[in-house]
C-alpha cells in the first residue's frame, strides 16, 4: 500500500484571472492528522472540493489512495469521506434515520450505525429529529456519518467553526480517538491556531492559494528565533546593568524587565538570573513564538483581523461609528 494517501502535483484552480489554488504540492501520509491553516478566502475550501471530486482542477493533478481524482472519481469516492463547513445533515430526519440513509448508500451494516452512535455519544438522541440537536451534536453526527463506510481519508472543512470552546475541545478529542482507533487519515482546514497546534501532526499555512509554510507546529515555530523573556525582580537596575554589560538591550517597566532574545540567548539570561540571590527574583518567564506569530511571519498579517473583518458587516461598522448600536 502506498504510504502517501494524498498526493497533489501542481494542483491549480483558476477562476478567470484569480488563482484560488495555485500550484499546490502536498504529500500526506497514512494515519496523519493534517491541518490546512489559512484565513477566509485563502483557497482552503476550493482545495477540499477538488480533493473530494466535487470540483475539477484547472491544472495539475491529485491522487487519493493512488487514484486520480479526475480520471477515477468513483474509486476516490469509495475511500474518502467529507464533513463540510455548513451543517449538511437533513434536519427533518432523526439521527438514526440520517445514518441509516447513508448506510443505505454505502451498504454499511446496522451494527456500524450502532457502533458510531455509541462512539459519538449520540445513542440517547437517535430518535430525535436533527432539528432539535445542538450545533455540537449535529457536528458529531455529521462526522459519524462521514465514517459510516470506514473511509481511509476523512476531510473536515472547518470542523469546529462557530462552536464554543468546550464543544470544540470535545470535537478534537473525538477526532483524535477516531484517528487512533480507526486509523483514519484526517485532512482538516481551520483558521483556529489552537486547533492546528493541538490537534494536527503537521500543519500547512495557505495564503492566496499558495502553501507558504509546512511542517509540525514545533518546526514552524522554530523558524522564528525570537523569544521574549520577562524577569520580575526587586532591583531592576542591577539586572539592567548586567544585561547592558552583556550587550543585550532591555526595557523596564516598574519591577519588570523585558528582553527580546534568540534561542541561545535564553540560557545566557537564565544563567545570569540564577547567579542572583534567590529572594530577589519573583518571576522568570519565556514566551516562545506561537503559531500566531508564525502565521504573521509568513502572511504579513494576523489571522484574527480577517476573522473579525468577516464578522462585522461594513454597514454594522458604520452603525458603530454613528453610535446607533
Amino acid at each position, binding site marked *: 500500500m502506498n504510504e502517501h494517501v494524498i498526493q497533489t502535483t501542481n494542483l491549480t484552480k483558476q477562476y478567470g484571472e484569480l488563482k484560488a489554488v495555485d500550484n499546490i504540492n502536498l504529500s500526506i501520509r497514512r494515519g496523519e492528522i493534517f491541518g490546512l491553516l489559512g484565513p477566509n478566502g485563502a483557497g482552503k475550501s476550493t482545495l477540499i472540493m477538488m480533493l473530494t471530486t*466535487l470540483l475539477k482542477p484547472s491544472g495539475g493533478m491529485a491522487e487519493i489512495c493512488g487514484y486520480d481524482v479526475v480520471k477515477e472519481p468513483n474509486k476516490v469516492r469509495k475511500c474518502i469521506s467529507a464533513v463540510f463547513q455548513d451543517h449538511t445533515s437533513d434536519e427533518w430526519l432523526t439521527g438514526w434515520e440520517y445514518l441509516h440513509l447513508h448506510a*443505505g448508500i454505502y451498504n454499511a451494516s446496522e451494527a456500524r450505525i450502532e457502533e458510531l452512535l455509541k462512539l459519538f455519544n449520540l445513542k440517547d438522541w437517535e430518535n430525535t429529529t436533527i432539528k432539535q440537536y445542538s450545533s455540537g451534536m449535529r457536528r458529531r453526527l455529521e462526522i459519524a456519518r462521514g465514517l459510516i463506510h470506514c473511509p481511509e481519508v476523512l476531510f473536515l472543512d472547518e470542523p469546529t467553526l462557530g462552536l464554543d470552546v468546550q464543544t470544540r475541545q470535545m470535537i478534537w478529542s473525538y477526532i483524535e480517538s477516531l484517528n487512533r482507533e480507526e486509523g483514519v487519515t484526517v485532512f482538516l482546514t481551520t483558521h483556529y491556531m489552537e486547533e492546528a497546534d493541538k490537534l494536527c501532526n503537521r500543519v500547512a499555512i495557505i495564503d492566496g492559494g499558495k502553501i507558504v509554510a509546512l511542517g509540525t507546529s514545533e518546526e514552524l515555530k522554530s523558524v522564528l528565533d525570537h523569544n521574549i523573556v520577562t524577569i520580575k525582580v526587586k532591583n531592576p537596575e542591577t539586572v539592567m546593568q548586567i544585561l547592558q554589560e552583556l550587550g543585550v538591550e532591555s526595557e523596564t517597566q516598574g519591577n519588570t524587565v523585558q528582553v527580546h532574545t534568540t534561542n541561545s540567548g535564553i540560557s545566557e539570561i537564565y544563567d545570569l538570573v540564577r547567579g542572583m540571590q534567590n529572594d530577589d527574583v519573583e518571576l522568570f518567564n519565556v514566551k516562545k513564538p506561537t503559531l500566531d506569530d508564525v502565521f504573521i511571519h509568513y502572511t504579513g498579517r494576523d489571522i484574527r483581523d480577517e476573522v473579525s473583518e468577516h464578522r462585522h458587516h461594513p454597514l454594522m461598522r458604520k452603525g458603530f461609528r454613528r453610535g446607533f448600536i
Partner: protein
Amino acid sequence: MEISVSDLRAIRAVSYREVIRFLRAKSRIVSSIAIPLIWFCAFGLGLGSAFGVRHGSLEYAEFLAPGIVAMTALFASTLSGISIIVDKEFGIIKELLIAPVSRFSLVLGKLMGGMITSLLRAIMITILFCVILELHVGILDFLGVLLVISLIAIGFGGFAIAIATKMESLEGFGLIVELFVMPIFFLSGAFFPIERLPGWLSTAVLLNPLTYGVDGLRLFMLGTSSFSMLHSLGVLIGFDVAVMLLAAYFFERSGV
C-alpha cells in the same frame, strides 16, 4: 447507461428521504389536500352550478375532478425541484455527490421520491372525489389512475429538476415555476373540453403533455376521453423519457 447495485441503493435511499420529508411536514400534507379542494369547490361546485355548465351527461364538477387530480400531481412534482434547490442551498447535496454512485441515480432517486409523494397526495384526492361525487372507479381503472399520476409526476418532476440544477435561489425557482406551471395547468383541458377550441389555443393544448395526463385520468375515472388510452399513455411515456434524459444531462453538468 449502466446502473449498478450501489446505484439502486442510492435511488432507494434518496427517495426514502423525500418521502420522510413529506410525511414529517404536516403543513405540506394539509396544504396538499386543501389546495386542490379549494380549486375544486370554487370552480367545480361554485362556477359549475352557478352557470349550470354541463358536458354531455356529466356535471361540471365531475368533468373537472380528473383535472384537479392532474393538478395535484403537477404541483407536487415541482417539489422535487424545490427539494434540489434546498439541498443545494444548505450544501446537503454535497453529501450525496461525494458518494460513489452515479449522478443519474441521484436524479432517479429524487424522481422516485417525488413520484411516491405525488401518488400519496393524488390518491387522497381521488378517493375524496369518489366519495363527494359518488364515482364508481373499479380496481383496474384505479390502477390506471395511479399509472397516469406516476407518469405526470415523473415527467414534470424531471422538468422541475432540470430547471432547478440551473437555479441558485428558491425565489428565482418559484418565479420560473409559476411562469410554467400555471399555463401548463390552464392549457391542459382540465377546465374545458379540448374539441371546440380556436386554432391557436388548440395547438397549445395539443402540445401540452399534461393534456394527455388529464385525458387519461378522465378515461379511467369517468370512462370518457378525447384520445385513446394508448395515445395518451404513449405521449406521456415519450415525454417522461425525454425529460429524464434532459434532467440527467443538466445534473451531470452542474458543478453544484
